[in-house]
Each structure stands twice: as structure tokens, then as C-alpha cells.
């Protein structure tokens, strides 16, 4: 979008990782009431896809990735200034099972090795940050071999959650943010995977080249205490080095 | 009672109520009529391919094929149909086309019947050929073989020999008649060819504008057309309008233009009534002025106006006070030394004059 002086009537477009859907929707609502006349359009999708699109000229002002390294990558490619990269949250991982499933989330990742559990859904570790996290958690729990034949891979973390929610997978290792979402909240139970069991899912964003001031304002809002509060409610820890 | 085919059909131009005997020794009914008369439409209704409007009725030998809206499926009627446009399956060979309807038979039997049908249709030499690339006459004969091969309960032939040259046609005609007569298969045959009707048909039905105008033995219909339309359809060359002058001894004297003709009394005529006198051109003999005595004959002086060669005959156009056409052989023409302008006598036997009362 063409850079415009701060003020009213400004529209900004945000590309955001899909695990942010519920948190960001709320944050944007608050932000918009505070910034009269600013309109925020959010496109949720796969973090990787956004990188490819931004490289080819996608008209996004702010990019909120599930993986901060992707944001840094864009800065290196001169799509943004390095100082505009910021961390906004750390993702949390849970074992989730639908009501009535044979799996018991309380037993954690190790519990998924039981024979009663035949299928476990995770996001594809090849390109989804939460997929990589889930894979690491499985390794940490030492049940790699037991789960080998049980894993089904979602294109992204939402699809993995769908497998579990529909009961076709007995359990899923998914983001806490999804487990807290309206769609899953009342459908099953979960237990959190300890943060030290997998490498930190550091979610970071970047204000892209040519973005208007309002995009910076939104980024600032997300890293403000108010923003962090909203993110925390939806299952995110604050980024490393920030206040809890 | 002999088995019959009863038809009551209203469809497109067709409006027909007909009952045809199907004796095994006289199985062929010829449908004759001008182009567009409804001959093909009639065959399609009998075959079950067109749905005539109720109250329709098609009954073959007591078996009801069509009664109001109830119709026996075309494929259960056991019909052999040579379509006017052949409708060979282009992707199959000649043999496969002919064998197509022969289901449930041992292979050897299928092959034998196919070969027999091809031979009956005069195209044994086409066995093994592809269908694409057949000439018009070849395709027609293969289609004929296909219709014959199924040994149908009823055979419908829509102009089976029209695409053939005269020698082939004449040869095939005799063979076809033999096949039909020996199998006794009831047959409806459409043709435009008088010779074919005469050679192949036992009975003739004349269809004009969708209606049956006359039916009966072939020769009789040709020589005694019941209506002017039939006369035109069967190609009666001379249809002269006149008035009854007198009746006596089974003969009627009819005034025609400047002259008069004597004809057998068909009954129901009143003196002064209008009639049409029909005379076939081949029944008009020509002789030179030197008269000869003979049986009750009509003799009219006439002048030759034109001579047109037409196949084996010469068509002689005459002016006898009214236009008159005669057919003579080339031999006769030379013997009589006919040229346009010649003065001749046209002789017509009374028996050859056929009167149609005109309303």
C-alpha cells in the first residue's frame, strides 16, 4: 500500500499465521477502537506462503509469522528493515483429545504411546513450526518409535486439530491457542507440553517496506502490555526477554 | 383367417387405417407414393421408432405392438429394417454389422448366417471389408444383408435397391424375391421403381399426402388407379378429363376434347357426368394411316410433337386434339418412321382405358 501520513481513513493489510486468528481478531478490534479511522484487514494463512507472496510483491504492510526466522529472512532480503523485526509471542504446545477419545491427554506425549491410541495428528514438521515443535516433543518423550506408524500430518496446525476434533485421530499435538479457540474449547480436553520439551516456538513479525505508520502502531500495540494481555488470554507466552 | 398387420396411425403427415394380409405365399406389400408421402414415417411407426398419437394401433398377427400409449419396445418386435439412409455402424466391419443382431447363436452359426445374408444381398465379396469407404450401393446392400440376417418376423425395406445400377438391381431383385418368397417373411417394401414393385410385390399400397389412396394386387392398382392422385403416383401418363356420352353393353362412351373414347363401364356413371380417363402410355399403340380392322378399339388421329428416348423405350408425345403420350420400342419407331410431325393413328384398346368418376 502507498505510504500515507498518519491519520484517519488509513487501511492496513496484515498477513498473519493462522494460529493467531482468534487472538489477533480481538487485538485488532481493540486497536481499531483506539485508532479511529484505521481499518485493519487481516489475511490468515500459512507463514511460509506469506513469505513467498511477499517476495513477489504482495501488498502486505505487516507480517506476523509463526516463526520469527521467516520475518528475519525477509529483512535480509531488503523487504524490510532489520530493526523492524520484532518478537510478539512464544507458542505453547498441548496434547489435545476429543471428548470420548481413547487417548488421555493428561498422560502427556508419552501417553500417546499406549496401544489404545492408534492415530495422532500433528502439523507437517517440514514446514509448520508447531509441527517441528510436536516432533521435538515426541523425541523428548522418547516415544518416537511407538508413534511412528500413528502419525497423520496436517498441512498446518489447524488441519491437525481438525483430524483430532473429528475423532479420526485419537489425539493431536497442537498449539494451545487452537485448543482455546471457540471451535475446540468445549470439544475436548488437553494438557500442556512443558516448554522445555521442545525448542521455543518464537513467533515474530516485521513491518514491511513501504508500510504506513499505522502498521508500526499495530506492531507496537501487539508488543504493548495490552496486546500481550490479549495474546496471553489466547494461549501465548510473551516473547523471550519480555516481561511475563 | 390369414394373419394380418393392422395399422391405425396418425403421425406427422400420416393418417392411415390399414389392414394388410400376410399370407406366407404372398408376403410382400409394396408402399408406393410420391416423395414426402409418409412412407418412411409409416415404417418408423410400425418399427416402434416413432410414437404415433393415440388412438394408435399396430397389431401384427394378433400381437399388439401399439395400443394408445402402450407400446412394445422397438427391440422386442423382432423386426428387420433397412433404413433409407442405411445407418450402418461406421466403426464395425461389414461382417460385424451384419452379425450385430445375431445374438445367442453359436459362433459358427452366426458366421454362416452372416455369410448367407451377404450372399443374399449380392455382396459376398465385401466380407471382411471396413464399413467406411463403402460406396453408396455397397452400403445399401450391406444394410439389406443386416436386415435379412436376423430372420425377422417382419421385414421393413425402405428403398432397398435405389442406389444400385440397373444390371445389379435386376439381378438382385430376382434373388431377393426368391429369398422373401421362400422364407415367407411378411415384408413392407418402399420403392419408387415401378419395375421393382411389379417384380417384388404381391400387394401395393399407394400413399399420397399421408393417406392410403388405394390398395390391392400390384398389377391391378397400376392399371386401375382409383383416384387421379394414384394415377399420377403410379405414373399413368395420360389422364384425360371428359364427360360420359352414353352407356351400352358394358361399355361407356366418353367425350374427350375433340374426340371420344370407349371404355369398360366401371358402374355408377351417369350420362353427362364428369370422368377422368386414364391410359398408360405403353397401352397406346401407334400405326400408320393404313387402317386395320380389329376388336373394340379406340382410334384417334394424331400428330407426333416430340420423341424422347427413355431407357429401353421411346416416349412419343402426340397431339390428338388433347395431349397424349405413347411408349413405343425403338424397333416400332423405325418401322413406323416416326419423326416429329409424323401423322399417325393412336390405338387404345377399350379395356386399357380406365375411368375414374370425378366429383
Amino acid at each position, binding site marked *: 500500500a502507498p505510504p500515507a501520513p498518519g491519520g484517519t481513513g488509513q487501511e492496513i*493489510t496484515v*498477513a498473519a499465521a*493462522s494460529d493467531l*486468528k*482468534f487472538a489477533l481478531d480481538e487485538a485488532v478490534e481493540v486497536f481499531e477502537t483506539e485508532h479511529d479511522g484505521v481499518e485493519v*484487514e487481516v*489475511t*490468515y*494463512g500459512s507463514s511460509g*506462503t506469506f513469505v*513467498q*507472496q511477499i*517476495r*513477489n*510483491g*504482495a*501488498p*502486505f504492510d505487516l507480517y506476523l509469522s509463526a516463526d520469527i526466522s521467516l520475518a528475519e529472512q525477509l529483512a535480509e532480503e531488503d523487504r524490510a528493515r532489520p530493526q523492524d523485526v520484532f518478537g510478539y509471542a512464544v507458542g505453547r504446545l498441548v496434547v489435545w483429545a476429543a471428548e470420548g477419545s481413547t487417548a488421555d491427554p493428561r498422560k502427556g506425549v508419552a501417553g500417546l504411546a499406549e496401544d489404545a491410541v492408534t492415530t495422532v495428528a500433528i502439523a507437517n514438521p517440514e514446514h509448520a513450526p508447531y509441527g517441528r515443535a510436536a516432533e521435538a516433543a515426541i523425541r523428548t518423550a522418547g516415544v518416537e518409535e511407538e508413534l511412528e506408524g500413528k502419525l497423520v500430518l496436517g498441512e*498446518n496446525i*489447524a*488441519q491437525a*486439530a*481438525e483430524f483430532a*476434533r473429528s475423532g479420526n485421530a485419537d489425539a493431536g499435538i497442537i498449539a494451545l491457542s*487452537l485448543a482455546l*479457540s*471457540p*471451535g*475446540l474449547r468445549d470439544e475436548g480436553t488437553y494438557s500442556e507440553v512443558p516448554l522445555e520439551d521442545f525448542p521455543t516456538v518464537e513467533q515474530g513479525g516485521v513491518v514491511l517496506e513501504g508500510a504506513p505508520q499505522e502498521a508500526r502502531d499495530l506492531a507496537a500495540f501487539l508488543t504493548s502490555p495490552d496486546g500481550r494481555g490479549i495474546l496471553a488470554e489466547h494461549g501465548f507466552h510473551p516473547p523471550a526477554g519480555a516481561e511475563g | 383367417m390369414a394373419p394380418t398387420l393392422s395399422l391405425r396411425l396418425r403421425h406427422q403427415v400420416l393418417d392411415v387405417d390399414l389392414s394388410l394380409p400376410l399370407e406366407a405365399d404372398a408376403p410382400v406389400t409394396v408402399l408406393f407414393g410420391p416423395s414426402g408421402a409418409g412412407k418412411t414415417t409409416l415404417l418408423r411407426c410400425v418399427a*416402434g*421408432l416413432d*410414437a404415433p398419437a393415440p388412438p394408435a394401433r399396430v397389431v401384427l398377427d394378433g400381437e399388439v405392438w401399439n395400443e394408445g400409449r402402450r*407400446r412394445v*419396445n*422397438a427391440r422386442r418386435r423382432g423386426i428387420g429394417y433397412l433404413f433409407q439412409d442405411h445407418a450402418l455402424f461406421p466403426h464395425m466391419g461389414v461382417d460385424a454389422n451384419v452379425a450385430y443382431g445375431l445374438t445367442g447363436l453359436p459362433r459358427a452359426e452366426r458366421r454362416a448366417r452372416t455369410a448367407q445374408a451377404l450372399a443374399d444381398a449380392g455382396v459376398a465379396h465385401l466380407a471382411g471389408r471396413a464399413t467406411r469407404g463403402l460406396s453408396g450401393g455397397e452400403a445399401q446392400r450391406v444394410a439389406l444383408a443386416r436386415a435379412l440376417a436376423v430372420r425377422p418376423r417382419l421385414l421393413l425395406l425402405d428403398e432397398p435397391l435405389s442406389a444400385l445400377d440397373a444390371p445389379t438391381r435386376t439381378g438382385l431383385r430376382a434373388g431377393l424375391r426368391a429369398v422373401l418368397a421362400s422364407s415367407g417373411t411378411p415384408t413392407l417394401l418402399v420403392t419408387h421403381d415401378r419395375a421393382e414393385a411389379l417384380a417384388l410385390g404381391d400387394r401395393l399400397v399407394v400413399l399420397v399426402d399421408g393417406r392410403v389412396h388405394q390398395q390391392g394386387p400390384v398389377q391391378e392398382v397400376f392399371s386401375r388407379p382409383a383416384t387421379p392422385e394414384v394415377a399420377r403416383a403410379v405414373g399413368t401418363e395420360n389422364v384425360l378429363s371428359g364427360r360420359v356420352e352414353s352407356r351400352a353393353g358394358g361399355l361407356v362412351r366418353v367425350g374427350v376434347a375433340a374426340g371420344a373414347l370407349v371404355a369398360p363401364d366401371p358402374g355408377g356413371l351417369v350420362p353427362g357426368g364428369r370422368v377422368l380417363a386414364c391410359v398408360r402410355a405403353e397401352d397406346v399403340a401407334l400405326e400408320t394411316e393404313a387402317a386395320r380392322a380389329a376388336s373394340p378399339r379406340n382410334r384417334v388421329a394424331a400428330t407426333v410433337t416430340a420423341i424422347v428416348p427413355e431407357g429401353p423405350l421411346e416416349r412419343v408425345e402426340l397431339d390428338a386434339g388433347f395431349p397424349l403420350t405413347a411408349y413405343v420400342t425403338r424397333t416400332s419407331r423405325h418401322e413406323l418412321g416416326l419423326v416429329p410431325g409424323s401423322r399417325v393413328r393412336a390405338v387404345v384398346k377399350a379395356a386399357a382405358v380406365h375411368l375414374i368418376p370425378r366429383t
Partner: protein
Amino acid sequence: MDWDAVALSVRLASATTLVLLVGAVPLAAWLAFSRRRWTVLVEAVVALPLVLPPTVLGFYLLVALGEGSPVGRWWSETTGSPLVFTFNGLLVASVLHSLPFAVQPLMASFAGVDRRLLEASWILGRSQAATVLRVVLPLSRPGLVTAAVLSFAHTIGEFGVVLMVGGNIPGRTRTVAISVYDSVQSFDYATAARTSVLLLLFSLVVLVATYALNRRGGPAWPRP
């Protein structure tokens, strides 16, 4: 319900179908009637967009039409707006992606037209273009309908290519397919179901109308 998305989808599907029919007819005619051997290669190439996963095709199209590509730059310079992430970009991508659905049924139908009618047309002095328009096309109505229906329906439902090339920007490049996809991804099954049912009903109406128009005068088995 995301009415903007519905409107965009209908617009995109209609435009795609239109462009495809106009473009595919000459291409299909050329392929169906050419005597040259190597046209089978073109025939095969036309079908190739199908074998790539839509997202992957979308990715390559993004690269090929994007700012970094000569095509993208030329377009930007000529029209003043980029090709990707705009309606025009979606249209180009949809047309390429649905090309096989238009060309293939047309070719099949064209090939079924009685050769003797083509000959009759040539003999009467008409050009190949006139023959296609006045003889081949009218006699290929079922193939034309199939081409239109498949192109239209496929464009309505397609989201991989459109997502990649369009960027899912609300009101501009978010089609109804992406919108349903988003609903499902965010577990909003009620909205997803509502939108799906709307989509299905709308498509049903369009398709039934199309088929009913096409049906008149087709062949039928004889009634028993």
C-alpha cells in the same frame, strides 16, 4: 456470510469461462482438425496445468507473473498496476488452470462432428473459421456446455492457485472458496456450512438452468 467473496467468485468464474470459451474454441479446433503430427504434443501440454498441485502451480505462476518476472514488470509498466494480487492476476491464473477443462471437451466434441459436413462446408467455399463457427460449434453444443460448466464450477471451487496468486485479500482477491476454507480452518463450521450450502445451491441453479437449456432435442432411448 462473506458477500464480497461471493460476488468476486461469480465475477471471476464468469470472466474465466468467457475468456476460456473464446480462446479455447480456436485452439480446440486447431488441435482437433490439424493433420500435423506434433499437435499431440500441444494437446498434452494443454492438459499439464492439471497435474501440478494447484498451490504449486500457483507458486510458479506467482513467480512467473510477479514483480520479479519480465511479464509482471511489463504488465506493471503498461497498466500501472501489478498483475499478482489483483483481479487480473486471478483471471490469468484461473484461465491457465482451467484451460484443460475447456479445451478437452471441446476437442472431443469437435472430433465427433460428421466429417462429411465439414467437406460440404469447404466445398461451398467457406473458410475454416466460418466452418468452425457455423457448422462445428453448433453441432458441438454438448461439448460447449461441458466446457463451460467445468470451467465455471472449477473456478468457483478452486482456491490453491487463487490463494497463491491473489493473496486472499478481503474484498479484492478473497474468493468464496478461500472464505469457506478459512472458515473451516478456524473451526467456524456453522459459517462454513452456510457458505457451502449457498455455494452448492447457487451452482445447482446455474447448472440445472444450463443443462435444461442444453437438453432440448437431445437423443433419448425409445420409451418401453
